[in-house]
């Protein structure tokens, strides 16, 4: 019988002759404890560092508010001299510069007109332009994205060569900031970047672009220009914008898209036309939709039914009802809802006998769809 060595050994005396397995364990224990201590030190360091940074930020914020207010409103303030002094004494580190940028953004958000030009002047005077340009030249995508964000927030022009490579960045956030910079800095063609993109627009990007267009001061772009874009997401975005900006002249184009080969584009065409509610085209729209109904997928059939509910009449519902199969439960429910909407008291559509399993309450019963 072989007795394992570890049954016999005495740690105190055999410490230098441990079996390898125990030696490894002992070393690992020490390593783990050392790492634990290191991490605790790191936690302490982070805590102290964050506290120091926060204190510095609070102090610098107050100094900046004071400086910017003086620069804006105090006529006796020696701008050139004070600017140089502030820059030299207060903006020594990268953190200082980033705090200054954040504070300037707060002022820029709250000031308009001439004051915003002065804010730009302060930004440039404090050397923050070059600081951010150097960020833009770095490889770090998050620094580039933040720099672009600041430049368009402050309406500061930068060389296009620093922006354009970011249009097709693999990082969503950088791409988005590049779009927004280009949109804000453009005088004539805010959506020109759509011609250069080689990735689809995400819904998030679409929402941001739409939001940015609200504050765009130039002419509203003609959204129909990108309706045949290679990415359906761009076409869909433009169709949404056509409806949002009431570009009624493009209704014929939207009607044509009701027969587009891509179902998502067909769906958006229905949504945009439904939202625009132009009485002259309603009949044409409903006619096309009813014609298309039998061959559409279930999502589009639902949209068509909703459209009938919103802008159609009972006769339109009667026209599509025969094309709803028994097994299309969702469509049957939609049909029943509309039937009840058009005929609150009794069903007129065949085979749509409305029942559900709710207990009726004569006092509280409601008949809304």
């Amino acid at each position, binding site marked *: 019988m072989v007795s394992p060595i570890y049954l016999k050994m005495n740690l105190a005396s055999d410490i230098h002759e441990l079996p390898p397995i125990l030696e490894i*364990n002992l070393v690992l224990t020490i390593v783990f404890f050392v790492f*634990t201590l290191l991490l605790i030190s790191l*936690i302490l360091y982070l*805590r102290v560092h964050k506290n120091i940074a926060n204190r510095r930020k609070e102090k610098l914020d107050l100094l900046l508010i004071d400086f910017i207010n003086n620069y804006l409103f105090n006529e006796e303030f020696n701008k050139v001299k004070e600017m140089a002094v502030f820059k030299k004494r207060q903006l020594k580190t990268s953190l200082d510069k980033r705090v200054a940028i954040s504070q300037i953004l707060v002022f820029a958000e709250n000031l308009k007109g001439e004051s915003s030009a002065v804010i730009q002047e302060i930004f440039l005077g404090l050397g923050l332009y070059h600081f951010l340009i150097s960020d833009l030249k770095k490889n770090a995508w*998050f620094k580039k*994205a933040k720099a672009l964000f600041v430049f368009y927030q402050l309406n500061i022009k930068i060389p296009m060569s620093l922006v354009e490579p970011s249009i097709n960045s693999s990082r969503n956030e950088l791409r988005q900031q590049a779009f927004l910079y280009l949109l804000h800095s453009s005088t004539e063609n805010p959506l020109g970047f759509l011609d250069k993109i080689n990735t689809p627009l995400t819904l998030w990007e679409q929402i941001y672009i739409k939001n940015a267009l609200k504050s765009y001061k130039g002419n509203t772009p003609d959204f129909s220009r990108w309706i045949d874009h290679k990415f359906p997401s761009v076409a869909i975005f433009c169709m949404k914008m056509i409806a949002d900006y009431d570009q009624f002249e493009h209704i014929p184009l939207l009607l044509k898209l009701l027969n587009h080969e891509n179902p998502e584009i067909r769906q958006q065409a229905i949504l945009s036309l439904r939202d625009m509610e132009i009485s002259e085209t309603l009949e044409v729209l409903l006619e096309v939709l009813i014609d298309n109904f039998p061959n559409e997928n279930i999502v589009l059939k639902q949209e068509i039914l909703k459209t009938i509910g919103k802008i159609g009449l009972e006769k339109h519902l009667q026209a599509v009802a025969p094309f709803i199969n028994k097994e299309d439960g969702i469509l049957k429910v939609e049909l029943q809802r509309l039937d009840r909407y058009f005929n609150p008291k009794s069903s007129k559509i065949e085979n749509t006998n409305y029942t559900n399993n709710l207990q009726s309450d004569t006092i*509280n*019963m409601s008949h*809304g769809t």
Partner: protein
Amino acid sequence: MNINFFEIIDIASLLFLAYGLIILTGYVFLAIFSLFELRDYKRKHNFKDEVALLQSSHLPKISVLAPAYNEEANVIENVKSLLTLDYPSFEIVIINDGSSDNTLRALVSTFDLFLDDMIYFNHVSTQKVRGVYSSRNKAYKNLKIIDKENGGKADALNTGINCCNHDIVCCIDVDCILERDALLKLVKPFLNNTKKVIASGGIIRVANSCIIEDGRIIEVRLPDTFIARAQILEYFRAFLMGRMAWSRVDGLLLISGAFGMFDKKIVIEAGGYNHNTVGEDMELLVRMRRLMREQKIPYTVSFVPDPLCWTEVPQSWKVLHRQRNRWTRGTIETLDLHKKMIFNPKYGVLGLLSTPYWMFFEWLAPIIEFFGILFLIFMVIFGQLNWYVFLIFFGVIYSFSILFSITALFFEEFSFQQYKKPKYMIRLLRTALLEPILYHPFVMWAAVKGNIDLIRGKTTWGKMTRTGLSNPTKTKP
């Protein structure tokens, strides 16, 4: 072949050691991946310009589904809090799952509800719906209450899915406290992704002892009880390390039932929540992922680490035992239902990494640990234990447990730093030292008991009593 007693001990020791090393390596990788993921997340969300988006009409509409069972005491406060979420278009659907108390009556009278004979389609079969209620008060126009016969949480959520109006559903526990921007943050992955996102989950934070006013956390405090503090560390490890890491490799198998957002169409296609498991949240996500994989549709599942959802964790050992027992049974049931995926390369990361991880580290770990302890007792009884050797082995496990918890604490400090007072950090460090000895063995036993109960055929949830969060004075130390 002659194998003697000592050789058996040798082999068993080596097996336990090998298993320990595999776990250790797995945890190290989790830590590395989650560090990168957290760093990226912080960098991505450095603009603070999302508030403007709350005005956008292009954001998708969301249905928030919250099952309620015997929640009479807090349901009104909770619903009021949900109604004040910041999001342009959402509906709140409360599913009264056959409560035996006055939950429904309280809701009807407070929110001036009437029985609404709406028509809906039963995508998923459920227990009978007794009534759907809407409010006469326009201030509550986005509130809907469904009263149904009791069928459990999965059944209640399925009913909500049948009756809700919107294509994205956010499933929550009704007593959870959500941050105002929780919906916007959780919906973002659905919108900002070139791949189809089928679900996104959020981190769950511990609300015990926090100061709450009007259904919002106004001050984060560290719980007074050791058991709650230990769960804070556990949640840090599970969310800030585990799920962040799995999110980075797109291998998430679980989105907490307390706070998750789903693409309704895919949920319905997958068949809704499974009534026959107590781990319905994990099972649904696994089934959804499996469906997408089998249909060869590119997709992803996202995870948002912002502290968006706060919940009360068990304060008593008894309730904790029930909870962990149930979690274990849910895990086993899910793994059993989807055993086809384990080690199956057809399912990519899920088949080769996620499901094996869950099998070996989540299901089997407590069992192996339990047998390890039995083995140790056996060695003590038969005089085969060298205490020096034991101390070396114990030292390595203990030091690693602490290191793992401290790493999670570091991630918290690096990312969101919710526990701002220095004394909180000291107490958490102290908890990390005690947790492997005082807390972990209990949780391990609860998991082992979960295995035993499953074999015995136990299928119930077990009663979850809560001490309540709504009264701030109650929670002040």
